[in-house]
């Protein structure tokens, strides 16, 4: 594999991680995930609907032997709830990877950074491979790395906002200091946002609403796949410096007199 994305001891060729929420049905989820080329998919942990328990089963559409399942702790407010959800997710038997999400505020869905760090500390000790959703704050990312998180996942913009990377300079600082993969999580709106993320040098990008909420989710999934690939290649290729004035592309020599 050329240019693999290494995460928690496994190598992936795709650098696009997709969520599975907000689709019309599981068939659409499956087709969008396939179109995205993603190998890692996030899922949420919720109560089984007891009155209709036999019908709904996401993992029948996304085979865990084919995809790496990344359970999240979405919707959890205090650290204890996130920890409880994490333990249940592990018990359900899809491995030890965990997207840790401890929300601090309902309106912005910004993370509660202190509670995230506290929960991460406990979960790392319990053997989880923790990928924390965190503010685009280099200090918080540094602390999470020191605790033993296998990646850091700074937000680009609020969850579901589609605003794209609001603070590329913070992301650059996080990239410079991090020895674990940096995955931008949340806020991507369209393909160019994903490309910019990858051009900055991020290791991967995680998105859900940008695909699931598009008019044509399958087409957007395909666009994101290309954008992540293009952005990564551009990063590796090394862009030219920005200059104020023109530099001719055609030679001066041999011009007609």
């Amino acid at each position, binding site marked *: 594999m050329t240019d693999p994305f290494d995460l928690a001891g496994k190598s992936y060729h795709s650098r696009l991680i997709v969520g599975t929420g*907000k689709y019309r049905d599981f068939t659409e989820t499956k087709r969008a995930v396939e179109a995205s080329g993603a190998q890692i998919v996030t899922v949420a942990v919720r*109560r089984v609907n*007891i009155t209709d328990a036999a019908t709904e089963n996401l993992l029948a559409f996304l085979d865990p032997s084919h995809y790496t399942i990344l359970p999240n702790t979405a919707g959890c407010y205090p650290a204890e709830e996130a920890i409880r959800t994490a333990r249940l997710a592990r018990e359900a038997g899809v491995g030890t990877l965990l997207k840790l999400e401890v929300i601090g505020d309902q309106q912005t869905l910004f993370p509660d950074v202190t509670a995230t760090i506290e929960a991460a500390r406990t979960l790392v000790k319990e053997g989880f491979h923790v990928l924390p959703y965190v503010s685009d704050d280099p200090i918080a990312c540094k602390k999470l790395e020191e605790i033993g998180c296998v990646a850091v996942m700074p937000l680009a913009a609020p969850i579901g906002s589609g605003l794209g990377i609001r603070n590329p300079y913070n992301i650059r600082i996080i990239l410079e200091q991090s020895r674990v993969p940096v995955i931008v999580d949340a806020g991507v709106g369209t393909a160019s946002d994903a490309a910019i993320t990858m051009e900055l040098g991020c290791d991967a990008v995680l998105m859900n609403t940008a695909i699931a909420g598009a008019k044509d989710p399958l087409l957007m999934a395909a666009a994101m796949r290309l954008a992540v690939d293009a952005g990564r290649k551009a990063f590796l290729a090394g862009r030219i410096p920005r200059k104020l004035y023109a530099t001719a592309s055609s030679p001066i020599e041999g011009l007609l007199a």
Partner: protein
Amino acid sequence: MLNGEPHQLDEGLTVAALLTQLGLNQRRIAVEINREIIGRDDYALRAVANGDQIEIVHFVGGG
């Protein structure tokens, strides 16, 4: 209580039997009774008692 709703269960019903009744025995789920996670190996041993708070969770779409 089962997933937050009052639920009548047979006396001495095991977790394994409950999951079979619900059609969940082949699924990736996790079970918690009174906030304690029940390991898969204990499903056949653990009987539910009157007043237990049972939670059965699974994976759904999420970001």
